[in-house]
């Protein structure tokens, strides 16, 4: 392998390709700049903020309030939030409550499998800091210890209105952010 590499380095065509790749890199920078400053950014962010599809993963008891928020009175679907079974099509993890050590591994695995951009809402006191169970032997004190968190929702459990507020805050965050720096 090393012999091949040295041969390539001396090859004038390879040198040209290297130069070419630098040029291509500059073009991609140009594309990023155009996308991030023009109306294309607004269109992409508009599409992202109104199709936040959360993963079907429930970590603990806040799922009862997540269920109530998805239900008839609070209806999260009017914000574009529709729980989805497939990881590849989802953009959002709502961490619903206490994260045990057993679940934390799976949660990280799910986060890694999701396509970019991906967002995380930590719902409930337990997902923020351990909450009521902070001194338990089997839990992780806070979701930020293993995944980056976008919005925290305090409460034990938070009311559905608080979750709606969190969704709106996340949408506002997406609206203001640049296209290539999300997730």
């Amino acid at each position: 392998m090393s012999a091949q590499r040295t041969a390539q380095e001396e090859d004038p065509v390879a040198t040209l390709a290297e130069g070419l790749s630098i040029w291509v890199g500059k073009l991609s920078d140009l594309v990023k700049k155009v996308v991030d400053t023009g109306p294309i950014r607004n269109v992409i962010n508009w599409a992202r903020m109104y199709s936040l599809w959360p993963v079907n993963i429930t970590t603990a008891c806040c799922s009862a309030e997540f269920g109530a928020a998805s239900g008839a009175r609070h209806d999260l679907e009017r914000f574009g939030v529709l729980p989805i079974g497939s990881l590849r099509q989802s953009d959002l993890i709502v961490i619903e409550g206490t994260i045990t050590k057993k679940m934390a591994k799976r949660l990280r695995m799910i986060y890694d499998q999701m396509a970019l951009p991906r967002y995380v809402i930590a719902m409930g006191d337990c997902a923020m800091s351990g909450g009521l169970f902070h001194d338990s032997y089997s839990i992780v004190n806070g979701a930020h210890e293993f995944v980056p968190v976008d919005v925290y929702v305090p409460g034990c459990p938070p009311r559905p209105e608080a979750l709606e507020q969190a969704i709106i805050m996340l949408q506002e965050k997406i609206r203001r952010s640049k296209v290539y720096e999300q997730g």
Partner: protein
Amino acid sequence: MSAPPKPPPLTTVESTETSDSGAQTLTLSVGPQHSGSGHMRLIVEVDGDIIVNVAPDPGYVHRGIEKIIELRNIIKSIPVIERPSIIDASNLNHAWVRSIEEIQGVEVPRRGQYLRTLLNEMNRIMSHLYWLSIYGVFLGHTTMFMWPLGDRELFIDLAEKLTGARITYSYLVPGGVRRDLPPGFAEEAVKRTEYFEKRLKEYDRIFFNNPLFTSRAKGIGVLSREKAIELGCTGPTLRGSGVDADLRKDEPYAAYPELDFEISTRPDGDSFSRAMVHMDEMRESCKMIRQIVKKIPSGPIRRKAPIVLPRGVAYGRVESARGECSFYLIGEGGDKPYRARYITGSYRNMAAIPAVLLGNRLADMPTAWWSIDYWPVEADR
């Protein structure tokens, strides 16, 4: 040229192996990231699409509550006790305060007993409605997801008027309850329960008499009477198998001896029977709520109880929405218990999961499994 590297195995498929009969079986891991499992994992072995082996893998929500209780004051433990079954909080709370009162020898005033029963029955309706809405999701029936969650808000509003919280009340304290009935509560409760009974008829029309449900639930997930008793099942799962066992009648507590209600049992033991037991219980609970607000006696709601737990042993149990919930409590004279053993209905019904799934088709798994009303948070504690 070496052979190309093998692709990594799919995450859901664990292994393929050959059983004794020579047929190839496949082991599937259902959950915890799955729309039909909740916070637990089922390791299902299928032959074709017939389920030949099921191993539940609980513990994803184990928070060590029994240990936490030992470190907290008995009053401060009340919110911790409620969290395992947040949709059925007051029933678990009731088991805890009953066992404390048994050690302390405190007697609760009759008005306090009635208020406890009132919140317990409202909680039972809310819990069953939540169960029903998830059943709708499992069967792909979105209307049945939206309707029960919408009607659940009727009772959540009532409970919020009474206690100040949506679903986690911490309403029952040793010696009584925290708050008295707010003005206008009785009329509102009667109005809402009567409206809800009309809604239950519509549920029957759209879901329980619908071939979409009946063809998938009748004869599926059969749990015989003997098997249910042998496995130690409890609550609606046991009554759906034709056993007439309910602590509210067998060992009456709080205001239940003074109320007129019936225990619903169904003899078949299939998914449909268990679902109908839930429906009947909601109707009975509506009747009970109306009786309570009519018959509730006047007087104090709370008697002064010490914060100290005297030396002694107690066993307090109640009928929660998912079956019998019990505490075995040992006091040693301080304000914390020496030991508290906590057993909930879902924990006992976990044994029934393999029994109802074996021999069914994989497509029938959601119907059979969710009819047990297994709430993983409550089972793991």
